[in-house]
């Protein structure tokens, strides 16, 4: 019997998972205006009006910048607590942190040398 | 006496490989050196195999000149060679036929045409090594290794230097035989892992002592399935009807020496395997299946003879006659009498000699006329009297004329199957019919080629026989007559071993089969 009960949770979870996203869709489908008009066909129904082509090309450097930024962003999350607890940590934790910094530096030097930081 | 120095068997086995290595270092252009190195190797091997025969103790049924080395000891696999009455004469046959095969290809047209002469002789020596290995090895895995290795050179011999449809024939040959042998691999792995060793004499001893047993209750129990695993591999090699369809293709497409070796030795690997492995390892299953196999053998005898008669292609005719002759050998084995098995062994030698001879003759005619069509010939006796006379002897030997070797084999086999306790008399009667059919198709073959008027212009000025052609035909004729008149020296070596083998398989019938000296005297 226990097995049935445990499985029941999954069933309930599934039902809720379907109902929650479906409900707002259903409600808006009921209340939405049926006929399209000029304002409705705009990209954004409110706010700024769009200008120009949607297919704007970004410079490829942008992505590389983005990636490197992300690396440092995540690095901070890990290094910050490490730095805070620095006084209470033993040699092992120090070594682990050092290894982590080495790997990041490794990647940074690589990116630097490959001219990833130049905005040419 | 194990492990002290090299056994003569090991020397005979590895000599072709020595020749192979020497040949590797001879430049491609030195055609003469290549040929004579190959021939020299095969002749020395032949001579040493004769020495082996001379040192062989015929009264001893056990393995002799044994040599064992470890290879994969933790799995019970090892290099284990030795000779006894069953394989000694097969080794001599192999070395003999190989010498003939190599000598006969000295001025073969295809080799000059397609080139790669060195590769050809390399494959010949590799094939010789593998074939001797199949006969002398006493370990299941190593046996399988040699068995499969024979495929590779034969595949290339047919595929590179064969006739028009050589690729088709080569691939068919390869796949057909591989399909059979890989089932055997499973069966032998099972036997070996159950027994804890792959050494055949030890397995047989275990079966005799009852420490290893494969239950047999009904036609499809463990022992039967293992039996079939081995049997199908051997049956494809022999070939037994209805598994023969690769044979005509391979024979017709192979170069002359390839056909000679195929008929002379390769087919015997199947029938040898039956005697060496099937009977002692699965005695009960062998007895249970004997009537069915004998039936297939008899069908093969009649079918092969019948189809052979209808051929217009010389090579195909000889190929189908092989199916018929090999049927006799299988019948003799599954008669399970010592006379029958001895007859089969001697008939293997006879068939190697006479069918090998036929293929040589066909090859020589083909070299001169570039056709294998029977209708293109007629009256050749007048153009080439020597070849005609030799052919007459070989044809008569093949059809079982008394006084020649074929008669000895077929007669002993029929005698053996008549005295068999596991087969009925009907098999013998129908098989005897096969001898009559053989006379018909063989004489038809001879008559259409050599007799009649020399009416075709192209046949009038055929070149005379070359020295090497005479050199290969003469030993064949000599042996055919020698065995026909004096079979005892050729049959005695297998006496003791076959006796003890039959005693193992059908313990209660050994005495029944003792027809007094019938096969051996004149």
């Amino acid at each position, binding site marked *: 019997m226990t097995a049935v009960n*445990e499985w029941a949770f999954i069933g309930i979870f599934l039902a809720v998972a379907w109902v929650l996203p479906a409900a707002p869709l259903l409600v808006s489908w009921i209340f939405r205006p049926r006929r399209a008009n000029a304002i409705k066909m705009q990209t954004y129904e409110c706010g700024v009006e769009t200008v120009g082509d949607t297919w704007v090309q970004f410079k490829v450097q942008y992505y590389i910048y983005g990636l490197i930024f992300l690396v440092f962003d995540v690095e901070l999350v890990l290094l910050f607590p490490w730095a805070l607890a620095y006084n209470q940590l*033993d040699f092992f934790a120090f070594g682990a942190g050092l290894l982590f910094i080495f790997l990041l530096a*490794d990647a940074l030097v690589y990116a630097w040398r490959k001219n990833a930081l130049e905005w040419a | 006496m194990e492990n002290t120095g090299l056994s003569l068997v090991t020397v005979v086995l590895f000599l072709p490989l020595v020749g192979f290595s020497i040949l590797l270092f001879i430049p491609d252009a030195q055609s003469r050196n290549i040929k004579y190195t190959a021939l020299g190797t095969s002749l020395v091997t032949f001579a040493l195999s004769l020495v082996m025969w001379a040192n062989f103790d015929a009264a001893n049924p056990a393995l002799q000149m044994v040599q064992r080395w470890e290879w994969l000891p933790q799995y019970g696999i090892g290099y284990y060679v030795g000779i006894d009455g069953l394989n000694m004469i097969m080794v001599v046959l192999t070395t003999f036929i190989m010498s003939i095969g190599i000598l006969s290809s000295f001025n073969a047209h295809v080799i000059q045409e397609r080139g790669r002469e060195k590769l050809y002789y390399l494959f010949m020596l590799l094939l010789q090594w593998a074939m001797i290995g199949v006969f002398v090895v006493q370990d299941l895995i190593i046996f399988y290794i040699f068995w499969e290795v024979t495929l*590779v050179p034969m595949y290339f011999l047919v595929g590179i230097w064969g006739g028009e449809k050589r*690729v088709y024939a080569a691939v068919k040959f390869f796949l057909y035989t*591989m399909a059979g042998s890989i089932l055997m691999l*499973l069966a032998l792995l099972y036997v070996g892992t159950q027994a804890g060793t792959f050494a055949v004499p030890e397995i047989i001893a275990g079966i005799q002592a009852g420490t290893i047993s494969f239950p047999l209750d009904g036609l499809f129990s463990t022992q039967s399935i293992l039996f079939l695993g081995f049997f199908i591999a051997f049956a494809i090699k022999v070939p037994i009807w209805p598994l023969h369809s690769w044979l005509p293709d391979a024979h017709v497409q192979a170069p002359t020496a390839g056909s000679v070796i195929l008929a002379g030795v390769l087919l015997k690997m199947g029938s040898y395997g039956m005697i060496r492995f099937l009977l002692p390892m699965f005695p009960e299953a062998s007895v249970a299946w004997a009537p069915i196999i004998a039936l297939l053998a008899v069908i093969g005898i009649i079918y092969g003879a019948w189809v052979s008669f209808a051929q217009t292609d010389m090579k195909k005719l000889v190929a189908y006659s092989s199916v018929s002759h090999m049927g006799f050998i299988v019948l003799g084995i599954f008669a399970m009498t010592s006379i029958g098995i001895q007859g089969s062994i001697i008939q293997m030698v006879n068939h190697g000699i006479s069918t090998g001879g036929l293929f040589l003759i066909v090859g020589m005619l083909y070299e001169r006329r570039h056709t294998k069509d029977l209708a293109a010939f007629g009256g050749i006796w007048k153009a080439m009297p020597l070849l005609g006379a030799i052919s007459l002897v070989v044809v008569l030997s093949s059809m079982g004329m008394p006084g020649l070797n074929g008669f000895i084999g077929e007669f002993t086999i029929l005698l053996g199957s008549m005295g068999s306790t596991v087969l009925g008399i009907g098999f013998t009667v129908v098989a005897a019919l096969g001898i009559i059919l053989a006379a018909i198709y063989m004489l038809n073959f001879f008559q259409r080629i050599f007799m009649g008027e020399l009416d075709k212009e192209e046949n009038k000025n055929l070149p005379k026989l070359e020295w090497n052609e005479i050199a290969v035909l003469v030993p064949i004729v000599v042996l055919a007559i020698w065995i026909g008149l004096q079979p005892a020296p050729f049959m005695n070596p297998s006496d003791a071993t076959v006796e003890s083998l039959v005693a193992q398989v059908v313990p209660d019938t050994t005495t029944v089969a003792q027809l007094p000296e019938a096969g051996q005297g004149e």
Partner: protein
Amino acid sequence: MLQLPSLETLNMGAALPAISIAAWACILLLIDLWIPKDRKILTVYLAAGNLVFAFIANLLVFNQSGDSFMGMYVADQFSGVMNLIIIGTALLSIVLSFDYLKRVGIERGEYYVLVLFVTAGAMFMAAANDLILIFVALELLSIPLYVLSAFRAPDIRSEEAGMKYFLLGAFASAFLVFGGAMVYGATGTTNLNEIAASAGMIIASNSSTSLFLLLGAALLLVGLGFKVAAVPFHEWTPDVYEGAPTPVTAFMSVAAKLGGFGSLLRILVVGMSAVTMTAGEPAVWQNVVAILAGLTMIVGNIVALSQANIKRMLAYSSIANAGYILMAVAAAGSPGLANEATRGALVYMLAYMFTNMGAFAVVIAVERANGGADLEHFVGLGKARPMLAIMMVVFMMSLTGIPLTGGFIGKALVFATTLNAGLVWLAIIGVLTSVVSAYYYVRVIVNMFLRDAEASTEEATPGYSTGVQWVAAVALGGTVLLGVLPTLITVLTDRVSLVASITP
């Protein structure tokens, strides 16, 4: 609460071969930046030197078993043999790559660094005794492989290969993680030994927990099944193998399999071998793995029949070979057979490594000489380049399982354990598909020797490069040596015992 380990408890020395490769890869990445473009051979030497060092180090510590990283990494004879094979693969493929990269103009130092990373990943996978380390190692193995597949970047098929491999690989990783999570949920641990200790009890209790454990094991199997290209998780293989640069194909067809099977054997044999319904019976996963093995052999071999491109054919053949190794894995599920089956699988993998690297070396040489790797490009090779063609014959024979080659020894051992495990039907599928495989391997030989080229192969056959020559020769030597003197490797594999590490 959290006991931080000291350097002694880490015992990194036991993992030295793998660690040295991973660390050196990081450093080499930087060193390479200052190596001028026309002297990239230096990078090759530095990478190869590291591999040789790791190889020797591995041999030296071969007999010393030990744990590193608190039981996450097990250095035993199993990982010892696996490391030898993996490092061998990496060495051969680096030598194979150098000329190729130069020829197609994608010579970049990162290539060798990525190869080193993959090597380290595969080595960690084979030695990982913890679900978490297995996952990390799998990623270390996979991600560089995605990059390597797309290394010939402007080439559209190479890009497609990289993309496809990345998407499906990520998908497979997700399965692996999910499966690991379920197993953790059921047993409360990620350590394989501890899983083994509690798995038996969980199954015996027959509660819903056992269901989670089984489901988790199944998902792990799916995840690793993707990596080793087992049917039905093989769909990516032919496209990726064909599109990737040829040396990469050679490398990943072996390295990814080695890593995948290393982990699979550890998870199933160490972690799950006690998962039986009744004591003394085969493990419950045996039938599942056996069915996968059967399907893999059938589909791999039959689809390979119709391939006209040798790279694609070898891709399907690698699927089929995964099936043969899976046979041994299935056999390992029978009580008392785990060690024998593992040894068989190891010998098979070594034989496959030599044979496959050799075959790809020949393919690279032919690609270079004749401009492609279709069956047609092999026509007349026997006349134009006899040595190359004869080598290819040996490799094809080895893949078929003809004796005197390593392939035969591998197959014989695998079939033997399968028979011992009582999986006769599986062994029969194995041999029948071997016959099928003979057809397409022999077809290569037919094209090389039995068909004559229409004259044109004589011109434009630049001699193949020394690197490729060396790899083909070494692979030939390995294949034949393993076939003639298998004791050389069984001396090592005989010491492998995976189950010994379970002490419940």
